[in-house]
């Protein structure tokens, strides 16, 4: 299976502090790879570094074999790498349609943008019904759908998504996961960060468990979920102590 994303010996952090300490792993094309780990393990930092919001100090990042480390977000969007950050990412003062339209900022072709917007609204009928309303009036689940729909405007090759289940009801989380599963089956490679380990690994193909900015455990999602050392990762003490 081809690698959609490959990180090798990546070191990155904020100011004086180093969060990623020589991180290396690969996410396969057309699969969902989920990053798990305790708070502060560096999960979100991985996504920010891959997406160019944080410059790697060392190491290489490749997307489908091409080096992308240190590129600006606009350049990465043009290559089909899209990022949905953690939390509520809509602009509350704008309408649903305008929020959606912002996803096509880098398209540069109005006719193409209109066609893609129609396709996204076709896919999410609830958003089409409320297209002219304020985005802030949408429910939590609808807002997340709008964020994902906005990411789909660029027809991404690789989707980075940070904690899509946060703040959502279990039923809505299942809908969001089903949507992501469908995207992966249509060929989109997904690198996801999740705290909701059991549910997330239940729908993922592969898992990477981070510990202090390095890979602690890595492998097929079911295998990582069944590994007894996973508890140590979240409860403290580290994997080495857990044997």
């Amino acid at each position, binding site marked *: 299976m081809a690698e959609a994303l490959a990180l090798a010996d990546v070191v990155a952090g904020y100011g004086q502090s180093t969060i990623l300490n020589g991180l290396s792993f690969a996410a396969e094309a057309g699969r969902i790879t989920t990053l798990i780990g305790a708070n502060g393990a560096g999960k979100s930092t991985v996504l920010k570094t891959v*997406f160019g*919001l944080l410059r790697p100090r060392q190491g290489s990042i490749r997307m489908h074999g091409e080096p992308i480390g240190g590129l600006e*977000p*606009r350049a990465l*969007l*043009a290559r089909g790498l899209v*990022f*949905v*950050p953690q939390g509520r*990412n809509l*602009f*509350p*003062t*704008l309408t649903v349609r*305008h929020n959606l*339209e*912002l*996803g096509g*900022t*880098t398209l540069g072709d109005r006719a193409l943008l209109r066609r893609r917007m129609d396709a996204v609204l076709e896919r999410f009928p609830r958003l089409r019904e409320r297209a002219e309303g304020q985005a802030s009036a949408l429910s939590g689940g609808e807002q997340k759908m709008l964020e994902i729909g*906005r990411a789909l405007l660029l027809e991404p090759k690789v989707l980075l998504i940070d904690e899509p289940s946060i703040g959502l009801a279990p039923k809505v989380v299942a809908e969001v996961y089903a949507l992501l599963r469908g995207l992966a089956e249509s060929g989109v490679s997904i690198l996801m960060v999740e705290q909701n380990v059991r549910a997330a690994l239940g729908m993922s193909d592969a898992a990477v468990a981070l510990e202090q900015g390095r890979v602690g455990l890595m492998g097929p999602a079911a295998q990582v979920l069944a590994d007894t050392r996973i508890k140590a990762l979240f409860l403290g003490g580290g994997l080495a102590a857990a044997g």
Partner: protein
Amino acid sequence: MTLPTLSRANVAALAFIVAMTAGLLAAPLFLKTYGVYLLSLWALNTVAAIGLNLTLGYAGQISLGQAAFLGIGAYAVAILMKAGVSFWLGLPAGVLLAFAVGLALGFPALRVQHHYLAFATLGFNALVFLVIRNEEWLTGGNFGIRVARPELLGHSLRSGIDYYHVCLAVLAVTALLVWLLLRSPWGRAFACLRDNPIRAESLGIDVRSYTLLAFAIGAACAGVAGAFLAPLVNFIDPSPFGLVPSIYLLLMVIIGGPGRFFGPFLGAAIVTLLPEWLRVADVWYLVIFGIFVVALMAFCPGGLLAVPEKVAAMRAARRSARGSAAGQAGARP
């Protein structure tokens, strides 16, 4: 032929614009020379405040240097007219100069935000003020420069009423252009910049360019206002371009309601005209004005245009509290 359907809010806004335009056009019939001058000043202050509202209210970049751009526009026109250049050539020169300097002032905003940015822009205003005051060979220093009213298509604008109509036209054109800008993808990009620059960047919005443009366009509006201010007053000196006038311009945006299109119109009216109406209160007028501002900021920080929303929210909260109290009383045996 089918007519486009207008929402109730659009009809209300349209009716307000028509009534306001009619009122402003008819106002000189009921006012003396000083009243017409004050309304002209209100129109130009509104133009400068519209620019600051774009920078601060829509793009979220605080600036305490708007009066400096007013000064750049005013002095560019005054100096060029003194050198024999027509006002109508001096005007684009002043606006372009304000735009270029505004673009340069945007660079600190790429590094710092909030109070740090406020002080960076305040420092810039102090710098411009010192240049205007001290470079006597160019600006006339505290002695100022006399500026004649221009002609328009061979018609002299020496009359206060004629010049007032020009100021109104300048306000209408600026407001229309900014309205169109805000409805375009640029306007939405500015809103994204204000709400969350990281989110904006993750969508591919060029945060750097839009930050610089937010400053430059806001500065250009002040440049336009300054260019027309010089002939309105017939004379310019450094005093209207210092730190205090910058704070007044900021107050216009804050009082009206930052990020609201008609906010600067209302804010400029209150800051420009209220002190005149309060003259009857003699030395107390600044006290009354100060108390009004403190009360507004304490109870409605969203500005005067946010008051109806605040009242509606309070009424809804009271209704819901009354409803739940009645429900509880009904549930009691």
